């Protein structure tokens, strides 16, 4: 029972991270609104995004659903789809009501619509081009990072360029971590999970390395753009970059050791944490 609850909580982590990113996004663009608007956005926007993020998680479950399984599971898939639709709709309606009652820009509704369209298209059409494991990683990363865009967009549709850079940094850092996470061995031998198609190890490391490089670039560029507190941002950017550069090095070295993945994963974990702190302090 305890394990079940733990695993459920662990599976909800992307939602928590996405909500944090949402709150961060609201904070990054707070200069465009007053305390009244910001408060209502914090309250209603958070509820809406949590629901949308959970709907995103369910998308992943739907996508990973095995069609060749028993009847019992087919029923579960329908229920999953229904749950996903309901949650997304409620989140969408909350956003709509927020817009109506608090006189937000009506175009803000495009944000949840876009998220919904992107995720739906991904889930139903991406399997033709990508393997399910890659789609899962992209979706998980997007649940996290799209929170930033959602939050920023609630305050203003004229989202500053550095918000998009931060969004990219979060996406690619998370993708980088997701790419190698499955290779981390806890107590058993290095092996991919049984039912999943995985990249070869060196290909995964190469991909993770590319994502890390993109992340680093996306974090450095804002210093030269008009973020509010570049010095404060720089203080935390330094440990962030240290973690990321070290992770890059390990990935590039590509040693086929189980330790490498664990170390890289830990570095990326801390890198993402510092990244969020740096983003917070930048504004």
């Amino acid at each position, binding site marked *: 029972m305890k394990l079940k609850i733990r695993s459920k909580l662990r599976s909800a982590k992307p939602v928590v991270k996405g909500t944090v990113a949402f709150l961060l996004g609201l904070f990054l663009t707070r200069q465009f609104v007053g305390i009244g*608007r910001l408060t209502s956005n914090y309250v209603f926007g958070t509820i809406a995004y949590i629901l949308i993020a959970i709907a995103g998680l369910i998308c992943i479950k739907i996508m990973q659903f095995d069609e060749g399984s028993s009847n019992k599971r087919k029923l579960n898939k329908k229920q999953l789809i229904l749950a996903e639709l309901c949650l997304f709709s409620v989140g969408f309606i909350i956003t709509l009501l927020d817009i109506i009652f608090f006189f937000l820009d009506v175009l803000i509704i495009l944000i949840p619509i876009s998220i919904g369209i992107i995720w739906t298209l991904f889930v139903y059409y991406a399997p033709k081009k990508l393997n399910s494991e890659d789609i899962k990683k992209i979706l998980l990363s997007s649940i996290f990072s799209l929170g930033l865009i959602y939050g920023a967009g609630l*305050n203003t549709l004229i989202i500053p360029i550095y918000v998009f850079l931060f969004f990219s940094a979060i996406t690619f850092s998370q993708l980088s971590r997701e790419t190698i996470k499955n290779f981390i061995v806890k107590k058993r031998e290095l092996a991919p999970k049984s039912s999943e198609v995985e990249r070869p190890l060196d290909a995964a490391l190469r991909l993770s390395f590319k994502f890390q490089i993109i992340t680093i670039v996306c974090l450095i560029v804002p210093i030269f753009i008009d973020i509010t507190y570049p010095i404060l941002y720089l203080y935390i950017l330094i440990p962030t970059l240290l973690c990321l550069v070290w992770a890059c090095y390990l990935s590039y070295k590509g040693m086929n050791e189980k330790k490498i993945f664990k170390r890289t994963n830990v570095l990326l974990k801390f890198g993402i944490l510092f990244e969020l702190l740096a983003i917070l302090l930048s504004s």
Partner: protein
Amino acid sequence: MKLKRLLKFSFLFIIVIYQQNVWGATFEIQQELWPYHMRTYFNRTIDVFEYFNATPEYRQRQNYYLGIANVSDSFYAQSAHIYSNVSVNEETIIENLQKLYDYRDTMDFRMNGLVRMLYLNINKTVLNGTTKDKVIDALGKCKYWYTELGRRDTAIYTTENHQIQYHTSEYLLGQLFPNDTFTNSGMTGKQHEDHAAPLVKQWLDWRGQFGFSEWHSNTYYVEDIGPLVNLVDFAMDPEIVIKAAMVLDLMAFDFAINYYKNLYATSMGRAYDGSRVREDVSGYASDSVREAAWLMVGVGDQPNDAGDLAAVALATSDHYAPPPILEAIANNASQYFEGYERNNLAISEGSQYGLDYLESGDLMYWWGLSGQIAPETIEQSYYLVETYERDPMTAFGPQILLDFIKWSAFFHGKSLSAYSEELSAISRGLLLESADIYTYRTPYYQLAGAQDHAKGLNGGQELIWQATLDNQAYVLTNSPGGYTQELDQMYVGGWKPRGTFYKNMGIIQYDREIMPFEAEAAIFLLNLFMGFKFYTHAYFPKWAFDNVVEYNKWTIGKKGDGYVALYTYEPAFWATGYELRSWGQKNTYIVELGSVEEYGSFENFVTQIKQAQVSITPLSLGYDIHYTSPSQGAVSVAWNGPMTVAGINVDLGPYDRFNNTYCNQTFGINITDIQFNSTRLELNFDNCTRLYQP
């Protein structure tokens, strides 16, 4: 509730411990009495009554007040005892000396009371040898300006009222003991006199040219009047005498045009909850200036006891009386009046008027405006505090705040000035700069407010607006959370609205921009420890009205033949019998006043208000408001931009110094020309002439 108190106590305890660790105070008191040789002869040739005599009514009020002061045991009333050759309460006098010995804040208020006693006692023996020696001892060992090093103090020298208190004391005591050496400073009396004289003149000139930093303060005008009367009565410098008299005239004019039904019913730069909030009919709230205002121009209730320096000084003054025109205006203005008035420079206007921001120059003008941490002044403020080893509590607040600002600026990689600009919601919010006051009065009501003043910024103690039917039935709104007096003032200070007023109606919007993360976190913590203040509210004492009707978002009150209606956009609830509260820091209020003369009856007023169309659209900042006033027609205003009434833009400022039926004075000009019924009073600070033409 207990937890709240515990949290508040813990928070204050931490602040105090931090403060003590940095500023542990030590006090040393010399036991020997201060040796002195008091001057007892002053050959003054200045005739303050060159052009007029005091009115008989004024003399009557003086005599009345003198009568009640002579039987009062209060400290300040002892001056009246001496004046009237009535024995003093020596115990009261002696126990008030301790503040001077301890160098504690507000010792200057006592100083001016003691100075007056000494001067009035010249060639008298009312104040006997021992008590007199002790008084002089305390004064001789005291400290008169922050530039005096030596023993540490906890005195605030630099608000507008404290400045004149200290300068006056220093000047007059220097005059009284010219050859004696004051213990703390090591300066002789003559040196103190020479040091203080230009500071006194500078303060007087600033008032004459720019008005009062603590505009219309019902608390601190009292602290200005006392020393000013002392200067008129005892200063030997004719320029100081005449200018002090002129500044007193300006204050009397202030009372004459702003008092309404025995209440100083106007916007104020500094006020306290205690002067406005009454929980019920048995509660007490009053203007500290009431005694002085009554004496000067006969407004307000006749006092029953004598307690403050200002009124006692006026009552015992042989050299100051307001020119008769001012009392005549007070009587006339109580009926119908519409006035525009401006007090204070904007900090950006310093160079335009020849003021700098240096400690060696005009920094004290800006400190008088509570401009210690404004971007233009913060560097010099820190310099002052560090150079003169000032306890920052006497300048900014606790040491922890000083360090917080300094280190935050450092970590942001910004200068103090640049970081102060980041915190402009507070650093500029505290500034009492450029207040444009609009007042509209009929025999039934008065509406007064600071037009479009520092909207969205965080203020200390401002009372932005007030709608008054009488001295109990009045309405005001506020968004609490001001950086003032233990952070527990709920109806003054706080987040300032965009207040826009026209004749009998006003629209007051509350909202604000978001500050840097650490400032928001600090405000959040302050609110957490010192009481949750995430709301706006209205003071609407139901007990004070004859009838109160609630309809939709309107609360409508009647007192006598005057009516007031208050609209609250956000959902509101009665937190108490006088507080109408709405959660959140964003809200819009509409106030409309009426009378039997305009509507015939309260019922008709209510009907008209119910039918009034109100359309309010929240914007990302503030609101867009369209209101069809039953009396004024279509009114439109938003967070930015003009206010229009019936299609015409309302003048929201900046105003002239005075623009009303009695006086038209361009702001920044040093001549005030007041006219009424063919009488004229000209206060010319350039020529130092106080001309009265009956």
